[in-house]
């Protein structure tokens, strides 16, 4: 890669991938302005902004969505923290039980969702634990941990210890070294892992089903309503999520530009 051809090729390719990723989203946004007369929102029947008003009188949709976001945020934070710690332990230390730990972390990714979900349900029932948001949260953290560990390890593999050792000479304690040296080095790995965990959590149906009890999350609601027809307000909420994310991105890029001016071109990444 590199070379004259790829100078143009790569950005074009990336743009195509982004189009690929967003193609169904674009359709979703268009249909958030549809004015369907029937139950189904699959045929264009005229432009309206009405859905953007009626959506606020639909706690049956907004409630599950808010719940899903809450669960996704909390499970992402907890799973990323626990998973990063495990990733650090496994890549930077040699200790007894490493092999068992590796298996314990890896096998959950291989388990079919139905088996994972059903096994948790038997646990809740045998403990007499009522199901709801807390049990969903526990389940999401459980399946997220492994994905975080695998992602973070892609960052830690071949990690250069010399910087940290330098840090240890410089700073008094391990915690400061971690904060000032290690964490910034592995941060992109943590961020990517967190994004992955968030995406997994916000979209989970099968495992959630078994731990939900009387609680309804967004994927559950949408899957269920597809029996009778998905109302356009669902598209509206999807569109608003995108709008908020893009505003967030805009702010971030703007802030990044300012920060970039301050410290131009530091070489922070260390290979093997």
């Amino acid at each position: 890669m590199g070379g004259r051809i790829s100078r143009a090729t790569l950005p074009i390719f990336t743009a195509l991938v982004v189009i690929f990723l967003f193609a169904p989203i674009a359709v979703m946004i268009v249909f958030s302005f549809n004015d369907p007369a029937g139950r189904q929102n699959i045929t264009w029947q005229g432009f309206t902004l009405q859905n953007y008003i009626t959506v606020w009188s639909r706690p049956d949709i907004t409630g599950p969505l808010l719940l899903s976001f809450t669960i996704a945020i909390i499970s992402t934070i907890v799973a990323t923290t626990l998973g990063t710690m495990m990733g650090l332990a496994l890549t930077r230390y040699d200790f007894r039980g490493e092999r068992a730990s590796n298996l314990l972390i890896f096998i959950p990714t291989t388990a079919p969702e139905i088996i994972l979900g059903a096994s948790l349900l038997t646990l809740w029932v045998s403990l007499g634990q009522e199901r709801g948001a807390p049990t969903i949260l526990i389940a999401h953290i459980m399946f997220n941990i492994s994905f975080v560990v695998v992602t973070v390890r892609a960052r830690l593999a071949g990690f250069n210890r010399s910087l940290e050792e330098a840090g240890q000479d410089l700073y008094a304690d391990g915690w400061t070294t971690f904060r000032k040296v290690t964490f910034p080095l592995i941060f992109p790995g943590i961020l990517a892992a967190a994004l992955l965990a968030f995406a997994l959590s916000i979209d989970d149906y099968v495992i959630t089903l078994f731990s939900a009890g009387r609680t309804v999350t967004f994927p559950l609601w949408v899957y269920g309503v597809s029996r009778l027809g998905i109302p356009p307000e669902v598209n509206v909420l999807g569109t608003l999520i995108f709008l908020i994310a893009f505003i967030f991105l805009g702010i971030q890029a703007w802030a990044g530009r300012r920060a970039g001016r301050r410290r131009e071109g530091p070489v922070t990444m260390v290979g093997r």
Partner: protein
Amino acid sequence: MTTDRRRWVPYALLAPGAIWLVLFFALPMAFMLLVSLQQGSLSQGYELTWNFAIYPEVLGQYWELMLRSVVFAFLTTLITLLIGYPMAYTIAFRGGRFKNALLLIVVMPFFVSFVIRTLNWKMILADNGLLFGTLKDLGLLDPSFQFLATPASVIFGMTYNFLPFMILPLYVALEKIDRRLIEAATDLYASRVQAFWRITFVLSLPGVIAGSLLTFIPAVGDFINADIIGGGNRDVIMIGNVIQFQFFTANDYPTAAALGFILIIGVMALVIAYTRAVGAEKLTEG
């Protein structure tokens, strides 16, 4: 820090996550293992009879679907790698201050439910939909062309849905590569292409491995893409669909559980073989 003090550090780092996984994964799964050895029915209840015979039984019955699932998952992994690598490369090396923004863009489609994404894909990919309908109208495509409900469409669906699982780990590995190494390599080797394969690609291998695993593994057990994009067509259903059928429809929990464990063992075997082949056995074997 004395070596003595450091000995407990890895255990302390591991403990919270490990306890979580033992309590909420290993323990329930051990119970599920017992379920797979039970016999009975919903009304009579299931009783533990140590029915190990169920394993060869279901393996014999469904091995073809397992093979198909592995093939579909393999193709999915290959395609996501081919699409994901250049994308991750661009974000890592050309992303500049938009790096994090681009990363978020990669996962954003997943904030709306699977059902919505898929329904909208189906509008685009319908036989006479936005894409193929237009091509057919232009005479560029045979009018009888069909994409949905074919094996290709299932692999397409999985590729779309697992792409972030490939791109994010790839990015993580690529982003840490010291550019000075690449520059030095470019001076050293004749071409940039050579420099790429000998330095960049080699250094990004941890990401390639992690990404392939995070794509391949869930793809093998997937059933929803075969169900919705594949329309449950006879030529596309995967082993995940059978597990779903046995569990939810037939309520044959032992068979569903046995299939699940065969899948776990099979996938672990493939994964271990793969990580050994690429020299990354530390990832799974410690």
